[in-house]
């Protein structure tokens, strides 16, 4: 990938401090805490007994479209991808990654702490933002293979999805159908959300401000990632066990 930046001057950072804060605060206005399946949806998931592909598909899509942690990561991933072909490549890797762990996690009943997984998801955003800032190449003198990294973080994101589903007593009746439906829904939601993000970024790219603000935008992205990780680690250490 060709990473291009305008001359980066510090004052431009203070100019975007507001947008950083705006992103940060909007992260937490969406739901009271974390990002889980809530309210009526939770009741539904628990009451269901038998295959219900459409409702689970809907829940999967909803989880993705409203899942700011996944979305921030994907913004980072496609930030410097200009061709739809590359977007498809990366997102496919990500989707394969999270499908594997979502299915295995629920079916094999892997018990992983959801807060830790969500903290790692937050750090995955930090990682991608740092990479977009060219940090690995210029600071650490090496480059991670971004395709492998996206795949590996896909595995973690899938584990996160699995922990959300495992919080409920899912009926073994129709479980496989329901999880596959949920997964298909996740992909549909991802395509919907990504299309919107890609279009928005493409429009932004036509104006000269894109590259000028690329560095600040990724700083904001990194801030969001740190905040999510901090939130989840706080929950891990402070939340009373249920």
């Amino acid at each position: 990938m060709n990473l291009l930046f305008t001359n980066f001057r510090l004052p431009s950072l203070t100019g975007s401090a507001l947008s950083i804060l705006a992103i940060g605060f909007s992260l937490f206005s969406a739901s009271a805490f974390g990002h889980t399946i809530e309210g009526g949806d939770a009741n539904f998931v628990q009451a269901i007994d038998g295959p219900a592909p459409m409702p689970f598909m809907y829940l999967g899509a909803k989880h993705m479209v409203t899942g700011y942690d996944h979305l921030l990561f994907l913004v980072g991933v496609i930030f410097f991808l200009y061709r739809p072909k590359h977007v498809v490549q990366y997102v496919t890797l990500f989707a394969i990654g999270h499908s594997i762990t979502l299915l295995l996690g629920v079916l094999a009943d892997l018990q992983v702490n959801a807060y830790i997984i969500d903290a790692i998801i937050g750090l995955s955003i930090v990682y991608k933002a740092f990479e977009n800032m060219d940090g690995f190449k210029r600071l650490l003198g090496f480059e991670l293979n971004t395709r492998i990294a996206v795949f590996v973080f896909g595995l973690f994101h899938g584990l996160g999805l699995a922990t959300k589903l495992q919080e409920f007593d899912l009926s073994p009746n129709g479980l496989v159908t329901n999880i596959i439906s949920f997964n298909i829904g996740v992909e549909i939601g991802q395509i919907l959300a990504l299309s919107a993000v890609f279009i928005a970024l493409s429009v932004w790219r036509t104006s000269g401000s894109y590259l000028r603000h690329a560095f600040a935008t990724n700083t904001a992205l990194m801030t969001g990632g740190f905040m999510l990780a901090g939130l989840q680690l706080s929950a891990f250490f402070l939340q009373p066990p249920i």
Partner: protein
Amino acid sequence: MTEQQNTTPPSTRNIIIASCIAFAVAMVVLFTAILPAEFGRDPLGTGELLGLNVLSAEENPFEEHAEIHRTDYVEFILEPFQSVEYKYLMDLDAPMIFSWVADGEVYYDMHAEPAGLGEEYAESFEQGNADRRMGSFHAPFAGIHGWFWENRSLNTIVVEVYSSGYYQTSTVFRDGGDYERVIEPVAE
């Protein structure tokens, strides 16, 4: 891949500074806003200052009511294909716990009608066939709340209803008419 020329990669120094700023902003928000608002921890006193502590205040399991509660017991007979309704007049959010037990299976419908709006706004909470239902109920609106029972068998069935709650009166709908039962508070 792209055509912009007047761009140079960010300097190492700027990457470090930006990363530190990102981390610092995240930690400031975490300690000043997120910890007080989400977890009720207020290490810097900012939760108190900004009034964020209210967001993590736990819901009090105790809920006060202004009146003394009432308690009710009824026993009635349903001949084959006879039906009856018992409804309590309750305010919004008034709770009630109940058990009804029959000596045979009856059709039941637990439902409520908002005060002053009549039958077309009735809301049903649970229907089915059973010989008993036990539960607790929180009135979703002010109005009359209760059950419709129908004996769809060929046997005579006795139904007993036990309840306690913050209701004022009970209305019985039977044989096309209705009458009010006055239920006294448990103490006065």
